[in-house]
């Protein structure tokens, strides 16, 4: 009896999580402009029309650019920070890590408005570059967390062994450290890219005249006749996001299963 109740609860919870999300792909194939049951019939025309929407494609291009720049920069910064906190005993490491993670707990709307005011105050124009800077605030903590875990997982003796065998710091990094933390780097790139790609509020405030994809979609919601196309776009983003996160997790775990220490 109790077992059944628990199963029911679990199913209800899963439904609560995923049914709303599933509405999106379902209506994206619905042959009607109106989002209402009963479904009118199957069509792929909303997807076909997406391909012809140059403004949307431009916004997609902006998002990809911002996402890739954010992923590369935050992973690079995360790499340096993670190496420093795991390899050296520095004063204030704990406090520094805390402050770096703080933007994760600041509401995005507050973050967005503060950045907007700040840019105005120092006279920087709103642009995709500004969006990248904003996204770095949110993504660097993710990158550090993923990479610190990876650095902590491997035996320091390996780097010393490399030095002992005649390689300087730079070559040791390329021959030992980098290959061993590569799964962490890939996971960090994927996670930060997704975070940036999906981010709306900071981008809304900072993108100016060059909307990213989420900002563009938000703009489209004012036009009821375009809603099915937005749903189709949302369904694609959903599928790609899930695939990327799954890939990131897979890469991270694949790396963890391999032996990490020399013992």
């Amino acid at each position, binding site marked *: 009896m109790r077992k059944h109740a628990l199963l029911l609860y679990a199913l209800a919870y899963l439904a609560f999580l995923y049914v709303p999300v599933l509405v999106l792909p379902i209506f994206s194939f619905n042959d009607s402009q109106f989002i209402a049951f009963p479904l009118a019939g199957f069509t792929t025309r909303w997807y076909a029309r997406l391909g012809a929407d140059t403004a949307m494609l431009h916004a997609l291009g902006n998002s990809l650019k911002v996402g890739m720049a954010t992923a590369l920069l935050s992973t690079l910064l995360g790499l340096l920070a993670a190496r420093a906190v795991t390899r050296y005993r520095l004063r204030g490491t704990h406090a520094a890590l805390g402050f770096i993670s703080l933007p994760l707990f600041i509401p995005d709307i507050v973050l967005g408005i503060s950045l907007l005011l700040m840019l105005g105050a120092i006279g920087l124009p709103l642009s995709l570059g500004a969006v990248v800077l904003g996204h770095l605030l949110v993504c660097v903590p993710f990158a550090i967390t993923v990479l610190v875990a990876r650095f902590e997982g491997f035996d320091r003796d390996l780097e010393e062994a*490399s030095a002992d065998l*005649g390689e300087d710091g730079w070559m040791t990094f390329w021959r030992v450290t980098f290959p061993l933390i590569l799964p962490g780097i890939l996971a960090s790139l994927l996670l930060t890219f997704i975070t940036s790609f999906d981010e709306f509020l900071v981008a809304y405030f900072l993108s100016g005249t060059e909307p990213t994809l989420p900002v563009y979609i938000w703009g489209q919601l004012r036009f009821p006749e375009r809603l099915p196309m937005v749903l189709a776009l949302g369904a694609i983003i959903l599928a790609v996001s899930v695939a990327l996160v799954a890939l990131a997790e897979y890469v991270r775990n694949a790396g963890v299963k391999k032996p990490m220490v020399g013992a």
Partner: protein
Amino acid sequence: MAYLSIRQVSKAFGGPPVVDAVDLEVPQGRFFALLGPSGCGKTTLLRMIAGFETPDSGTIAIDGEVMNAIPPHLRPTNMVFQSYAIFPHLSVFDNIAYGLRKLRLPKNELKARVEAMLATVRLEGLSGRGAGQLSGGQRQRVALARALVRQPKLLLLDEPLAALDKRLREAMQVELRQLQRQVGITFLMVTHDQEEALSLADQVAVMNNGKILQVASPRELYERPNCREVADFIGEINFFHATVKAVDGDRVTVNGGLLGVVALPRANILFDAAVGDALLLAIRPEDIGFADAGLAGTLAASTFLGETTLFQVQVAGRSDPIVVSNYFDPPSKDVHLNFPPDMLIGLPES
């Protein structure tokens, strides 16, 4: 001129010195062991020789060249790490070839050198294996091969056998000894295992609290320790407080408390003793005999060790039992102990 020469080297990590004004000379081509309990500073000393730590003061020279300012990757030393530190992302071949990159050898020559090294450590046919597919003993061989293939002036071994189980450890002891003779490279091993140090090394330095207490051959360390700490650390030993009564010719007469008045050879007194000095008489368990007469005691416990048995004998007027080793059990629990004067050694008190 010693091959490795350490002069007045000290190192502290923000507390009392871990290595305290150490002087040490290691001759070329020998197997040298640095023996001491954990925390005595031996590993720190080894890491300073490898270049992973910098001495606060003093100099370290190898083959006449001062090493203090030379970073680890440029030193003529190679190390076998306690964890072995085998690169997990590389095959056995690539692990061993790792340190040969700078030589820019032609491919077939590199292969020949690695294969020859594999044969030396008896790992033929395993060159394609990944690090994850090796047993503990194989990992140790890879670590040795990887270090030796560079033909270092000095091979440093940090507790090389500690991670292996007892049987494998004993087999590897023999192999390590043979390997050193075969390659002729100077080995400097750090260990806390006195049996390992005594059976492997030509010379042993005993270290405690950051200081070197004695440097000697294994036999000398066992038979003529220069202080109580060394005697205590190497094997079992019994101590008796005594005072010097007379020094005449080649004999020294001492008042040995429970042992009575004994005259021992002057050569057995391992310090400059004068009449009236306090001294510590020491004797190994195997040098004490059961006899019909002598110091009376009762058998308190015995430990069968296979070849011999270790007996704890309680005697009146002494709290610690006297440890005696013998092949045969004494006929009764009431025993008499015989202390041959020539087997007693005299150490400085304290």
